[in-house]
């Protein structure tokens, strides 16, 4: 319809028209709710009725909320299981699939394995969470297997004991995340000139040496992107915790997103939930900005 109005004054400005749908979507879906959330974080609101202005009350409460600080510490630990461990495992696996499995067993086996590792990414987290719940329950598969092979002493109340719960949830998250890292790294590997490996091999470099001297430096851009996206994901992790432990036992696996959900939907402290969400958003955006700055500086040099 808009085209019918005739040509735009300059050709350059004509392009702006095509940005409108995207901009509208951004305003409606991202910007609008963010602003609404920011405003709500200064109010007391039960989700229905009229919000009441409360100034900085929610933020003051936040500073003294042990649950909130506990959840922030858990987030740091989840960065280990969502970013650091999956990236390390993903790197080794990608290199292994790319230049060992593929060479020895062929393209098909390598693709099959890659698809297998990626499968947890496709499975709905809720489904996977329920399955893991059955495995990790005190009367679940993991303990039954341990007892059957005579290692009953190692059987634990995995998700019901504060000592193990965080590690158990982390294990599930690693299982989910590895596939993502692997697929991105493998795509990156296909970009690397094979002659580099051949030259290194002729020089007598072993597999691990080639991994650290060639693969890792050449994959730097991919590693960078994966680290950034998974760290952001770690800051917002919700579904695995919700399905497996609901933040328990005794808040041992509580994360900020779950706390937001809890206050928004069950305690009806919508304003307080909004304040937690604002803090989360600020940290996430700050992290992204730091990373992108760092990246552009890297590229400049």
């Amino acid at each position, binding site marked *: 319809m808009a085209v019918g109005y005739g040509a735009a004054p300059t050709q350059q400005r004509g392009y702006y028209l095509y940005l409108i749908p995207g901009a509208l979507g951004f305003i409606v879906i991202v910007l609008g709710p963010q602003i609404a959330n920011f405003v709500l974080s200064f109010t007391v609101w039960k989700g*229905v009725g009229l919000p009441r202005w409360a100034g900085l009350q929610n933020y003051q409460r936040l500073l003294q909320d042990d649950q909130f600080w506990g959840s922030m510490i858990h987030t740091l630990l989840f960065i280990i299981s969502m970013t650091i461990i999956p990236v390390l495992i993903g790197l080794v696996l990608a290199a292994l699939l790319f230049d060992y499995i593929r060479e020895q067993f062929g393209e098909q086996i390598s693709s099959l394995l890659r698809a297998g590792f990626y499968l947890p990414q496709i499975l709905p987290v809720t489904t996977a969470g329920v399955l893991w719940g059955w495995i990790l*329950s005190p*009367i679940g598969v993991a303990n039954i297997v341990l007892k059957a092979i005579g290692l009953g002493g190692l059987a634990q109340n995995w998700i019901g*004991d*504060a000592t193990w719960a965080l590690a158990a949830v982390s294990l599930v998250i690693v299982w989910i995340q590895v596939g993502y890292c692997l697929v991105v790294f493998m795509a990156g590997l296909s970009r690397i000139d094979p002659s580099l490996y051949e030259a290194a091999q002729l020089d007598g470099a072993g597999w691990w040496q080639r991994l650290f001297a060639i693969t890792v430096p050449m994959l730097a851009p991919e590693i960078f992107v994966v680290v950034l996206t998974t760290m952001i994901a770690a800051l917002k992790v919700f579904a695995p915790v919700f399905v497996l432990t*609901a933040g328990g036992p*005794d808040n041992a696996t509580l994360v900020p997103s779950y706390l937001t959900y809890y206050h928004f939907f069950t305690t*009806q402290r919508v304003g307080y939930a909004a304040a937690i969400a604002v803090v989360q958003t600020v940290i996430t955006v700050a992290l992204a900005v730091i990373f992108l700055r760092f990246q552009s500086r890297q590229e400049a040099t």
Partner: protein
Amino acid sequence: MHKLSRLALAFSASAMLLTGAAQAQQKTFNIWWFEDPASSEGIAWTKALDEFKTAHPDVTVNFQQKTFAQLQASGSMILNSDQAPDVLEYNKGNATAGLVASQGLLTNLDDYVTKQGWDKILNEGDLVLSKYDDKGIYGSGHVWGISVYGEYVSCFYNMDMFEKAGLKAPTTLDEWVADMDAFKKQGVTPLALGAVDTSGQHLLASLAYTKADDTWIQNYQGLKAPLDGAPYLYAAQTLLDWVNKGYISKDSTGMKDPDAALLFTSGKAPMYVSGTWNLGSFASTIKDFKWGQFVIPTTKYSVGSTGNLWVVPKGSKNPDLAADWISLTLSPKYQTELANDGGVAIAADPSTITNPVGKNAAAVFKQIADKNGLGFYPDWPVPGYYDVLNQKDTGLFQGTLTPQQFVDQIKKVYDDAQANQ
């Protein structure tokens, strides 16, 4: 601009035509509930709905199955929109029905109570949770919803295992402990429990209520005073003692209710404390042993209440039809049907009930309700208390919280809500 406005005009005109056509057509009646289709209520109400459709041939009846979680999470927002149905099942209590009633999202049912004769079927105790004041606190004010069934928490027990062990169902707390001890000595963990789930906090509250008097219950449920922690301290100490003695497994902190129920239905654990909402599934899944219920020995109060409410949203276009529907589910025919499907009927004539499970449940509920012994659920007074109790329960069971710390922590949340209501 000219084109646009003409377009807008055309749109609005056709929209008006459409609504006009819809109005000329049949009346529609939208009804929602969240009871599982396989539950006693689900079965009885589905049959009632068939009769309702036949009785109103001029009305298009649209039924939608919801889930408890759906309405728990976003019920108030749905009621606040034009998407609300004409009548729906809604969770009773201050934090749910009370909240939406106080926000003016429901239709006042005062007139219907006498007009439809509900006051002749339901006694004062049955209507306590129908009334909410303008702050959303139950017990007084207008009638905003009607419950047509009851619920209570009791101990399910495996009669065959009891018989084999030479034990009988207890009538006092001491007898109960003695039974558990006897099972433990025979190498059986007597009590299955989902400590991260509803059954954990219901056992806790059942024990607390054994030390509760009228004032305590009224203060506690009405959020009238800072929490008097003594009954909870007793309950926490007792539970910890039971865990230490092996009456309850420490592993229960990793179990949800379905896991614990499985231990009972598969005949591994002789006892399981939970609510009457299990009756339907136990009746259909337990085939190889006899089972029954005993009420947890208490002086007056049991964990239990009248059931969820039929409420009529403010925007309901057919409040009269909604009242007819409520009357139908309260009628002797469908009360008996409910009991025969294994549910807890609130107003059924016992002589007409043929299902022993439903007959017993109706009798037990009447016994508790008649002495005004419905102590309601422990998570009611404070929004979000359900999760707090679950979290702190697991802390107590796994040994990271002492009973005193447990009480201090739940008291902190309670008192905070009490002071800021």
